[in-house]
């Protein structure tokens, strides 16, 4: 764990481990409590495998009542709890704590209700994202947010992270597609927020819970809205001599009033890596490749695909291909979807970053990343959700070379700070977790963070849910109450930044 500091494990909890495990077994009988090293090993990390930690114990409840009792027990005994879905987090959001219960929600894997007339699905949190779409596909419906891990990631994890995907400019993130949740508070109390109806009057607790990274409660049921799958989808592949030209094309498409279902950009390194891997016929003589997908009624898609082609041609695109069949459309995407494993073939290890920038800053960000790449001596490729400005630089390194992971992490942090500098943010869809926790002060000052923590304090005043995540310093709620800014000056203007 390169330089990552987690909250110090409490010796008294570690000392009581046997008793705690016995108590947990009384709540979740049988195989629901795991305490051997071999069986806990699969839970020691999530998608960020550079960070590992064995938990105090793994608990796998199967009913809301058990979740409630486990949390009430943890609350009464001051034991931290780390919730976990499928463990696909790319920010270390489900990294265990040595003195904490890892609460795995995998057994909550049933779909409880499908209502086509009202266009809603009620699912338990352990149902996979794709599982929801699969359950409604026979009627031509689907669940819109589609993070790239959708085959494995769970809807509960999506709620925790406010997951996005390639289609979110048009169809929104998780928060725009969730209608209700049942959630257990750290006290064991169970609340229901929202339901089958759209939001109406009242505070939007649901909007605060979505994206709260497991720090506010444990979701035990989720109601989502489903949409009719678009009648047609077609994609255009356009190659440009520079990323500036490709960026100008993206801006021109949006300025023309067109919101594509997906709009992805890849840089030269990624084009070559992907083409070598999946061989789908990407042009290799271009600096930037744009995939623009239009979806909707057939007449509309055919009309817009022509307009997008005209815009691209007018801006100097070197290659232009519009898909004429579903197979061809899928092939256009195959390279993009294989981008990460393709990098895995050319580099032993890589870090995937996740900043968002105002789109117009792309040329500046790309050229400064090139300078950083030279400075750190590490290669870096870029895939970019061009429509919404979400950038995924992939930093190549070799973990077996001493110091290279640390170098890659420093490079990654520099990229994220650059995103903030140009008016963007630290994370577009992967979450803060532990990975970007210590960078939060680059975006938010002490007062900003204090207001976020006040929300945390309303839900979990003892900071037992997922401590060590999101906030660089988790103040005790009582201290937070006393904090005051005088004369417009922050109390701690010089908090560490890196």
């Amino acid at each position: 764990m390169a330089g990552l500091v987690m909250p110090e494990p409490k010796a008294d909890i570690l000392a009581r481990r046997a008793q705690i495990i016995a108590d947990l077994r009384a709540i979740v009988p049988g195989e629901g409590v795991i305490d051997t090293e071999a069986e806990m090993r699969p839970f020691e990390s999530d998608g960020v495998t550079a960070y590992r930690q064995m938990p105090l114990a793994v608990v796998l409840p199967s009913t809301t009542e058990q979740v409630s009792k486990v949390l009430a027990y943890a609350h009464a005994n001051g034991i931290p709890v780390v919730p976990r879905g499928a463990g696909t987090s790319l920010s270390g959001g489900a990294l265990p704590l040595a003195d904490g219960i890892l609460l795995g929600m995998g057994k909550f894997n049933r779909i409880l209700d499908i209502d086509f007339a009202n266009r809603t699905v009620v699912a338990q949190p352990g149902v996979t994202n794709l599982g929801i779409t699969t359950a409604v596909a026979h009627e031509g419906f689907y669940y819109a947010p589609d993070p790239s891990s959708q085959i494995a990631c769970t809807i509960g994890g999506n709620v925790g992270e406010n997951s996005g995907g390639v289609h979110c400019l048009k169809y929104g993130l998780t928060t725009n597609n969730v209608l209700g949740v049942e959630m257990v508070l750290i006290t064991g109390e169970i609340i229901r927020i929202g339901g089958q109806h759209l939001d109406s009057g009242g505070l939007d607790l649901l909007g605060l819970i979505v994206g709260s990274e497991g720090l506010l409660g444990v979701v035990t049921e989720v109601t989502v809205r489903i949409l009719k799958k678009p009648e047609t989808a077609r994609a255009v592949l356009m190659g440009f001599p520079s990323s500036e030209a490709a960026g100008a094309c993206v801006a021109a498409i949006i300025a023309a009033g067109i919101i594509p279902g997906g709009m992805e950009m890849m840089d030269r390194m990624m084009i070559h890596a992907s083409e070598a891997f999946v061989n789908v016929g990407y042009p290799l003589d271009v600096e930037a490749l744009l995939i623009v997908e239009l979806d909707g009624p057939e007449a509309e898609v055919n009309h817009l695909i022509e307009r997008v082609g005209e815009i691209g041609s007018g801006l100097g695109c070197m290659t232009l291909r519009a898909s004429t069949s579903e197979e061809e459309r899928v092939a256009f995407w195959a390279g993009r979807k294989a981008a990460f494993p393709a990098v895995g073939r050319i580099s032993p290890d890589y870090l995937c970053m996740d900043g968002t920038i105002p789109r117009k800053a792309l040329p500046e960000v790309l050229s400064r990343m090139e300078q950083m790449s030279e400075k750190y001596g590490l290669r870096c490729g870029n895939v970019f959700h061009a429509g919404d400005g979400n950038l995924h630089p992939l930093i190549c390194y070799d973990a077996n070379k001493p110091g290279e992971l640390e170098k890659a992490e420093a490079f990654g942090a520099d990229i994220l700070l650059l995103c903030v500098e140009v008016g963007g943010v630290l994370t577009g869809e992967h979450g803060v977790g532990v990975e970007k926790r210590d960078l939060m002060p680059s975006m938010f000052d002490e007062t900003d963070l204090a207001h976020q923590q006040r929300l945390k304090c309303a839900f979990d005043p003892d900071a037992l849910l997922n401590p060590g995540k999101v906030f660089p310093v988790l103040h005790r709620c009582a201290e937070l109450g006393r904090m005051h800014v005088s004369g417009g000056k922050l109390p701690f203007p010089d908090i560490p930044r890196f």
Partner: protein
Amino acid sequence: MSEREVGQRIGPRDEAEVVEAVRWALAEGRTLDVAGSGSKAALGRHIQTDLTLELKALTGVTLYEPEELVLSAKAGTPVAEIEALVAASSQMMAFEPMDFGPLLGRPAGGGTLGGLMACNLAGPRRPSAGAARDHALGVRAVSGRGEAFKAGGRVVKNVTGYDLPRGLAGSYGTLAAFTELTIKILPRPETVETLLVLGLDDASAASTMSAAVGSYYDVSGAAHVPADVAVRIPVVAGAGGAVTALRLEGVGPSIQHRRRKLEEMLSARGALSFLDAENSIAFWRTLRDVEPFALPEGGDIDTAKAVWRVSVAPMKGAAIGAAVRAVGATCLYDWAGGLVWIEMPDATPRTALVREAVAAVGGGHATLIRASAAARASEEVFQPLDAVTGALVKRMKQGFDPSRVLSPGRMYAGV
């Protein structure tokens, strides 16, 4: 500033003056009603505060980049100004914010951006495009602790920290006073048409709207206007009965294709008619602002017919309508049937009846929109919270506004 007196309006001109005003109130033990232009002062629970914190002098669009789909403006900027600005670039606030002016006996076009977000406004495009909170990207605000803070950002994809911009949307000024907001702006559709299905009862209308919204044909508005309300809307009054309206927006060739497909799909359900672009715009604006239930400008809210806004699952709306019709109420359905606007026969809200009807269909939100000050002071205006959620909301208030300086009680008694 000790000359401030109870009943006065404080009109800060920038964020620093908002901070000063809230700190003054904290120091003096005064309460403040957070307001923009005051156009929605009659919305929410009726409260009496010592002074009014009026943010309408904080004006001006500070950032508008059409190609980036983003706009920032000071909280007191008039909504009408923003609508006109983005329309000039063929863009819009896609959530189609309703204007409460007509319902509350005020002139149309009076609201501010801060008020729009504080009340989380939405319109007929809500089911497909979301509400104001779905378009809130970033916020600057002053909490009841007298501290200025920011949250969110200016990009559409952002999960850095809690989604406070969304959480503060719809908080009616009870947690913080907005000073500046950043919102998502989207392209305006090139054109619009509306397909009308005539003569349906409420239940058939619900299933017709469900079929249309659940089709491939991108229906961006689905409303049902029963016969007794249709006569009050000029562009459909001639239909001579109930109209079920399905809006199609986008590029011309697409609309023609979709209209043809929908006509094939729905022709067996009732006689069909349609509204061209001009009449469509007029119809959906009338519906958005619930003009059939409007109170004439300057009308007395205390004696006006009570109005409710009920949000339930779309197929459950008709049951709400049936329950309130029994006492002589009039209804209007939007959001494919899930949003029920109810006008009571007189000024009595009949709260128990409405709440029971919502509970009977499995839950939802009922908000008392227009009622006498006395009724809005004594009854829950928003959907009542259960004990655990109520305690949670109180703790949130405690976190953001521990001295209960900002619009105390506007949403819930004691909060």
